[in-house]
């Protein structure tokens, strides 16, 4: 289906609305995290990043899962809109993972004393970043749109299947090499206020992710619609 200028404008409006909602929710989470949640006994202030970082890591992973699922649909239906959506999701995922890989160490250095730690979350985000980067770089190296969509879909599907193996490997590594865990990813029994903030963080990150993707998708369709009108 060919994109129209008015149709894509509608998509962009939805994207902006969702993004604004997501950003507002994020601000609320920040405030809750910094002011209203109690300090965790062992980790102190450093632990507070957990309310934003854990959901953001989850969003980056969802972003790639969506790239993979939409890629399967593309190979089946060959609808260019699916390819545009997958690419938008990958771009947003790339940005999310870059932000996490930079803010994580910057926050952590004064508190942990080290820039990097091979904990599960950072390692997974790094691998996702490399997958997103590979996906986007491949796209930029191919000119024919059908071939670009096809090859991207292949990488998307393979990457989606890879992610559980990264989880498995990191999990097995950590059980065999127990280290003092710098940031606990989750505790078996979180007090209610922490749990609520964390859940709100998940919601905020998901809405923000969705907002960005819809916005990016709308912009892509708009660009194609404009170019079609010129021809």
């Amino acid at each position: 289906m060919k994109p129209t200028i008015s149709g894509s404008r509608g998509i962009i409006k939805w994207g902006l609305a969702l993004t604004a909602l997501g950003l507002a929710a994020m601000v609320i989470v920040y405030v809750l995290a910094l002011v209203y949640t109690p300090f965790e006994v062992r980790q102190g202030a450093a632990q507070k990043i957990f309310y934003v970082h854990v959901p953001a890591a989850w969003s980056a992973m969802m972003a790639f899962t969506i790239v993979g699922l939409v890629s399967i649909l593309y190979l089946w239906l060959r609808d260019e809109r699916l390819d545009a959506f997958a690419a938008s999701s990958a771009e947003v995922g790339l940005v999310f993972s870059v932000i996490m890989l930079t803010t994580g160490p910057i926050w952590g250095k004064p508190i942990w004393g080290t820039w990097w730690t091979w904990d599960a979350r950072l390692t997974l985000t790094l691998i996702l970043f490399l997958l997103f980067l590979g996906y986007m770089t491949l796209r930029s190296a191919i000119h024919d749109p059908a071939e670009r969509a096809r090859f991207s879909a292949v990488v998307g599907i393979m990457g989606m299947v890879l992610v559980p193996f990264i989880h498995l490997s990191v999990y097995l590594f950590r059980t065999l090499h127990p280290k003092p865990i710098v940031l606990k990813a989750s505790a078996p029994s979180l007090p209610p206020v922490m749990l609520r903030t964390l859940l709100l963080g998940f919601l905020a990150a998901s809405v923000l992710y969705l907002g960005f993707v819809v916005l990016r998708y709308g912009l892509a369709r708009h660009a194609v619609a404009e170019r079609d009108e010129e021809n």
Partner: protein
Amino acid sequence: MPRADAPLLEAHGLERRFGNTRAVRGVDVTVGSGDLVAVFGPNGAGKTTLLRMLGGLVRPTSGQVVVKGRDLKSTDPEVRRPIGLLSHQSFLYDDLTASENLAFAARIYGLAEPPAAALEALADVGLEHKAHEPVRSLSRGMVQRVALARALMAHPEILLLDEPFTGLDAPAARHIQDVLARRRSEGHGAVVVSHQFAEVWDIASHMVVMIEGAVVMRESPPPSLGAFLPEYESWLRE
């Protein structure tokens, strides 16, 4: 002997888009037993893309190709068996000898006794004395003959040829004409894309002209060359 059976190959409404350009627009082609369809047109008219769609190398954006009653899109690889393609590229491996190349093709097509079949195919094109030379060391004309041998080895019922006469000297061109004429009398089909009218005119049963992806002229049997050329020129000028 030509039979009035169902067509060997039928294509309806073939379309192929590359990005925003439509390289092939709404083209129908039918190849019956003993037919030779000649396709003419300027560069960029979509002739090669059409041929590749008929061969199953390129998936049509819309439309259908039916080979001996079966959709070319079928997942069963055997649907491709009746088709042979002779293109600008030889499909040969430069570091293998001529006979090794043909023996490999024979294995791929499941022919009996690949090495013997390879030598026989080379003999048919008069190149048995070059059987053990690497393709890299063969002249361009010889490479084309080996490529032709490769295409004919599997006895394709439908042969698709992309500008087979380009760069050939008179004897080589006549050889291809003989092959095509013999195939017609045996009831096989062919589609020939060509710029060279003279070589194709006497052997074609159908004539098609493509301009910018669409079929603009279609006649069977083809008119006389003298009547055709002025009309063709006028199409080109538009």
